[in-house]
């Protein structure tokens, strides 16, 4: 017969794990990238863009987005299922203001299971551009864009199911030209047509 103390400890541990397991699983699937490690670069940067929009703020923002305006309506649709948008962008006057370790803190997180690098563009003029997607099964659970240049470091992180169709619809509407983004589904369709 096992001692009573041992049985109780086992029961308590099982109960504790059962309670914590869902929270741990939920946390593990979060596509949020921690960017706080880059904050020290703001002091060196000539221009800094720091956007931290969580679900609550996006809900608030959605309230003031007009349904009459087509652009705002599209933005509203895009952010409907999102849990957060986070941007950190630093522009420097001179080269070598950030270290490779700074970029590595982001890249390490993007090597976690679920994330896959969709695009990796390296050019002499515009540095390195990487686009990552987090897949939860077949669904996109998050998007990350990492742009590193001699005088620039930008990280974009969209948390939640990003609808690439809706994002593509925003092209040219926010002061940037057409992007030509296609969702994987549409792309295959177009390929089939060809």
């Amino acid at each position, binding site marked *: 017969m096992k001692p*009573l103390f041992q*049985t*109780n*400890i086992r*029961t*308590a*541990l099982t*109960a*504790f794990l059962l*309670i*914590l397991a869902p929270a741990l699983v939920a946390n593990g699937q979060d596509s949020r990238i921690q960017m*706080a490690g880059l904050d020290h670069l*703001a002091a060196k*940067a*000539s*221009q*800094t*863009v*720091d*956007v*931290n*929009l*969580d679900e*609550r*703020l*996006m809900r*608030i*923002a959605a*309230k*003031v*987005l007009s349904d009459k305006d087509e652009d705002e309506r599209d*933005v509203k649709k*895009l*952010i409907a299922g999102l849990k957060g*948008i*986070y*941007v950190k*962008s630093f522009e420097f006057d001179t080269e070598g203001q950030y270290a490779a370790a700074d970029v590595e803190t982001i890249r390490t997180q993007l090597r976690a299971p679920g994330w896959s690098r969709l*695009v990796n*563009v390296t*050019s002499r003029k*515009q540095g390195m*551009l990487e*686009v990552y997607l987090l897949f939860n099964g077949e669904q996109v659970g998050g998007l990350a*864009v990492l*742009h590193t240049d001699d005088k620039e470091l*930008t990280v*974009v992180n*969209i948390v939640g199911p990003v609808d690439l169709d809706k*994002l593509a619809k*925003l*092209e040219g509407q*926010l*002061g*940037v*030209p*057409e*992007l*030509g*983004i296609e969702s994987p589904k549409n792309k295959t369709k177009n390929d089939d047509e060809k």
Partner: protein
Amino acid sequence: MNDDYLWDKTGQPDPQIQQLEEILGTLRYQPKPLAIPDDLRVPQRRNYLPLLAIAASVLLAIVAGGIWLRGRSRSEAPKIQAKVESPTPKPDVTPVLPEKKSAVNPPPVVAHNRRRNRSASSAVENKEALMAKEQLMLALRVTTQKLHLVHTKTSPANQIKNQHRVG
């Protein structure tokens, strides 16, 4: 006299010993099931230890979860306005707090004060919403700009151009 009878029951027994055996033999152990009387009441003592252990672990989990959530919300405190540091100076957009307003111009009636507070808080909420919207548009602008850059770099026309340069 032989003492073997006392040790292993062999040999000639002593009559006195035999007599003693007969007297004490009535008290010999006789196998029979334990009979518990029906009227016997045993006080039931419940073991609350497992329940207490579970309750303690649940409490511990709640406390730990609370501390974790608090720490997380503090570290990820949402910034109301996008921080864009540029050479051009920005106009001061510090919201006028309702407390300041009432201190400058105290209302005579409580109902008026409440209404004013309500409208002031809705104004603050509206301002927060507008700031969040600005932040959202800025974030989407940066995102689309970067994606546009990716697109131009990966477009076939750009690749052909690069091939010509190499050629």
